[in-house]
């Protein structure tokens, strides 16, 4: 049943993509509706600033529209393709912001808890972790975000980054070790 729904959605996405390739802006608008949340979330975790994440998300879709004619459905899901655009965009962004980007601009979204102390503690913990993620090397950062935030499987990450699955696993392992080092004593408290 779940597979059927997934297949139906895949067919719908393929149809929207084809129509977008044909120049149908409205179909591309539907693709935006389907994927904006995932793209925004990915960018938010990468840059840590909602304003910039929002701007970059819009830019991802604009770039995707410009390049959609070159998108070919070779088994690579559309979201993976979008995330690879987001990654490339971020590389450019970091390059442009090399000397000015601050890692202190932490956003702490609240959760459902009504206890403000718990909210604050959880927020602080996750904020520290997010801040640590943004201090990782770019390849480690993108693998961590794709794996833990975007919920992508290793083959999908490998496809998005044009790497082998084995390479992705190694990068993730190194990323976890790097995070452990970045967080230092803080991680012992968290653990």
């Amino acid at each position, binding site marked *: 049943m779940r597979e059927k729904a997934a297949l139906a959605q895949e067919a719908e996405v393929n149809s929207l993509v084809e129509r977008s390739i*044909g120049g149908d802006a409205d179909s591309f608008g539907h693709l935006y509706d389907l994927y904006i949340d995932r793209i925004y979330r990915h960018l938010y975790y990468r840059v840590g600033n909602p*304003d910039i994440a*929002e701007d970059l998300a819009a830019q991802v879709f604009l770039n995707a529209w410009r390049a959609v004619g070159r998108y070919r459905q070779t088994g690579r899901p559309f979201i993976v393709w979008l995330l690879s655009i987001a990654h490339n965009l971020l590389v450019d962004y970091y390059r442009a912001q090399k000397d000015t980007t601050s890692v202190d601009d932490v*956003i702490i979204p609240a959760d459902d808890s009504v206890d403000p102390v718990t909210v604050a503690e959880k927020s602080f913990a996750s904020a520290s972790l997010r801040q640590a993620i943004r201090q990782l090397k770019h390849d480690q950062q993108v693998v961590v975000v794709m794996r833990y935030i975007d919920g992508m499987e290793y083959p999908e990450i490998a496809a998005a980054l044009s790497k082998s699955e084995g390479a992705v696993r190694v990068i993730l*392992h190194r990323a976890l070790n790097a995070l452990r080092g970045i967080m230092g004593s803080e991680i012992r408290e968290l653990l």
Partner: protein
Amino acid sequence: MKTTDLLIMCAQELDAGTSSVDDIVARYPGQRSELAPLLQLHLKLEALPKRIVLSEPTKARVRAQLLAEIRESCAAAKPSIAERLRSFLPQFVGVSDTGRYFARPVAIALTLLLSFGLVGAGTVSAAMESGPGDSLYSLKEATEQARVAFAFTNTDKADAYLWIASARVRDISKIADNGRLDLAEKVVGDYNKSLAEALRLASVQKQDRVKFQEQVTSVQTDLHGIYDKAPQELQFHLAQTLSVGATAASVAPTGVAAPASTSVTDGVSATGVPQGLPVKEGPPIDKAGGSPEPTPTKSSPISTEPFQLPVSDTLPAKGNTGPAAGPVPGKEVAPAASTGQTSGEKDLPVSDATPPAQDSLTPKTGSETPDATNSKGKTVIQSSISPPVGSGRVTIKQ
């Protein structure tokens, strides 16, 4: 087993809920010191908030901006085949008189090649049924220009331009149906240009005047019929067009029977009627050349009185793209603007037909959630998962 593979395998066990960290480290005591913190870190990463989304209004705003930019870039990036030909030919033949002499045959040859040689008659036929925004629309425009290029007398050219104007009326009807209002300005503008050319050329033709007049009236009546059913944004463009028509009628060349009267209708300017389609009631136009003073009434703007063609032995000056055929000799008339509107139009009320405000592309202010950032621009704890609106666009290099 490599440490990486072991870590991934253990993480998958944690995700599946089949083992705890303690279970795993008990199984691999020799690697406890490395595995335990990494697996705990894995769990913390899995627990990171994933419900971070844009708020619905922000999503809608970004979507509107995105689609506006897409449509704008489409319009800018895809000149019609006719426009490409026009921009290409001067380079090919130069700008000398000799070059201009050869430009038409080259244009005809290229257009024919495009129309029949490369794409085939079937495609051309399909293109003629296409509407604004369709992929074959450029071919349709090129085919229309080919008909103009093949017309070697003013009579034939006037017929060709009127035929194009009629096609634009059908296009306007299509965009009224399919909601492509972003194309309304262009299509209505094309209609104005074509009709203006038809009237300019027809003013010196010597035959078939009655038939031509009937055709013009028919085209304008069709346009007025669309106005009644059109969305507000399209009505705005049409109201301007229809105003131009009526204003043009009031300054028509010798021989033109100016409308006997005019009136204000709902949401339309006082002269919001097709040229030569006088309204039933209202004050008489100042035949001495003064602008009519509109008196608001609620009468229907449509009359079945036929359009009357201007009579002139000289070809009116090109460049007035509105349907006006030129000023009346001896009469004081306000100069026509390049858009086809006369300066007198500023007195004609069209405020009711103002198009809806467009989603602005102006920089964001962040005012939607003013508490979200501190004075240094750093974000602090939010009360909602939905983040605040940004304060400025980031231009990213491609």
